């Protein structure tokens, strides 16, 4: 089961890299062709795509932690949190991940990194203050389950690669409406490739958003909850932690479209939507709690 998940996450990550590459190459070909050399465009796209894949793989963790304004902590800063993670690392046979804290009163947590040897878990101060030892153990076990079955790899790659394209296309579409007119006045043809890109991005942006949603299938969160229960042999800890998180109406400020799928509960939407939305990246919390309590 676990090995299936690891294989699936590796496969999905590779498909993702090739998917993004194909997108860039197509874009590069049309742009290059327009300027007289399609092959140059393809070459450039391959370079850009490879660099972005490498940056996502090796630097994705840093990027995600940075935009979440997470600070690394040492054992003396929070001995209990450290002990809890250390215990779970022993329980799961994983190396000890780095621990980060986000200064935010909204309760939430996530894990990221390319593999267990380079994993990081982050938790908000809001969640840290609310939970007792057993609940903290449940939450951290959930995060370490994501580490163990390599969900962290795929969600990191999606967050950085697709997230950056989504953000870029937002930016690009806006700048086309802004600067398009000026270019047209200088050179009638100049805006054509820009318009092609704009059109392409306009079509693709919602598809990317959808991919991001699928990156966190509901199944994935249920699975992490189940393996957390197996790790701690105490499902009630995580269940009561989820309940506390669910009752809190606060919105996590540092989360955005590129990182929301990483968190243990959806950090952006208020609770009513969190629980009911059909297209939410996360399953409804009540359902998760009742499944845990049935174990």
């Amino acid at each position, binding site marked *: 089961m676990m090995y299936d998940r690891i294989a699936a996450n590796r496969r999905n990550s590779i498909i993702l890299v090739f998917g993004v590459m194909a997108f860039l190459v197509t874009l590069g070909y049309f742009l290059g062709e327009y300027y007289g050399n399609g092959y140059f465009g393809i070459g450039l796209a391959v370079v850009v795509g490879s660099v972005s894949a490498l940056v996502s793989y090796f630097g994705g963790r840093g990027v995600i932690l940075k935009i979440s304004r997470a600070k690394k902590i040492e054992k003396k800063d929070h*001995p209990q949190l450290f002990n809890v993670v*250390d215990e*779970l690392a022993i*329980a799961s046979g994983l190396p000890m991940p780095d621990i980060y804290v986000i200064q935010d009163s909204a309760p939430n947590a996530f894990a990221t990194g390319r593999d267990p040897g380079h994993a990081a878990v982050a938790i908000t101060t809001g969640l840290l203050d609310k939970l007792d*030892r057993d609940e903290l153990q449940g939450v951290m076990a959930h995060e370490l389950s994501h580490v163990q079955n390599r969900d962290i790899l795929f969600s990191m790659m999606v967050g950085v690669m697709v997230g950056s394209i989504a953000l870029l296309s937002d930016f690009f579409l806006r700048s086309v409406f802004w600067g398009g007119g000026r270019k047209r006045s200088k050179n009638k043809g100049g805006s054509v490739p820009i318009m092609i890109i704009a059109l392409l991005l306009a079509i693709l942006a919602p598809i990317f958003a959808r991919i991001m949603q699928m990156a966190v299938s509901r199944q994935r969160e249920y699975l992490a909850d189940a393996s957390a229960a197996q790790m701690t042999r105490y499902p009630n800890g995580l269940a009561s932690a989820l309940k506390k998180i669910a009752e809190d109406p606060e919105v996590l400020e540092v989360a955005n479209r590129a990182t929301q799928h990483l968190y243990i509960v959806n950090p952006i939407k208020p609770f009513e939507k969190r629980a009911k939305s059909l297209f939410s990246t996360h399953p409804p919390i009540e359902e998760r709690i009742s499944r845990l309590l049935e174990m």
Partner: protein
Amino acid sequence: MIVFLIVVIIVVVMVTGLYNTLVKLKKRCENGWAQIDVQLKRRYDLIPNLVETAKGYMKHEREVLENVTKARQQAIDASSVKDQAAAENMLTSTLRTLFAVAESYPDLKANTNMLAVQEELVSTENKISFARQHFNDTVMAYNTKIEVFPSNIIAGMFNFVEREFFELENEAEKEVPKVSFE
């Protein structure tokens, strides 16, 4: 001829792969066992600190503290696995008594050093049981691999023997009478 060569190559690759998997699983078991030891030692190291902190407050409960120290020494000195299991069990009981008694000393309970040592001990207890749990999981994976086809052939050829689970190895632990709390 070529077909024969291909078959030989496939067999060699398969045998190598299975052998390496078995070695990896065996190493994981050994590592799991070592991890339990690490945590037990850590518990021994924490106890003097705990006793020292509690001593200042628990004037009338010398005996409780002495029992903890004695149980610790017995666990360290134990030579056979059976003795050690018994001593570890004793140590756990005396520690429980100590914490139960400490409940009636509000000053001690509020002492930051005491809280820190207590957190470390709770964590170490958890680590010991998680380490056992993980060890048993790895042993299970290893033993299964030894028994299933085709890796059982390789296991037989290279003398991989089944490992015992932690509980089985310490059957004595279950027989030790529980120290009662009065």
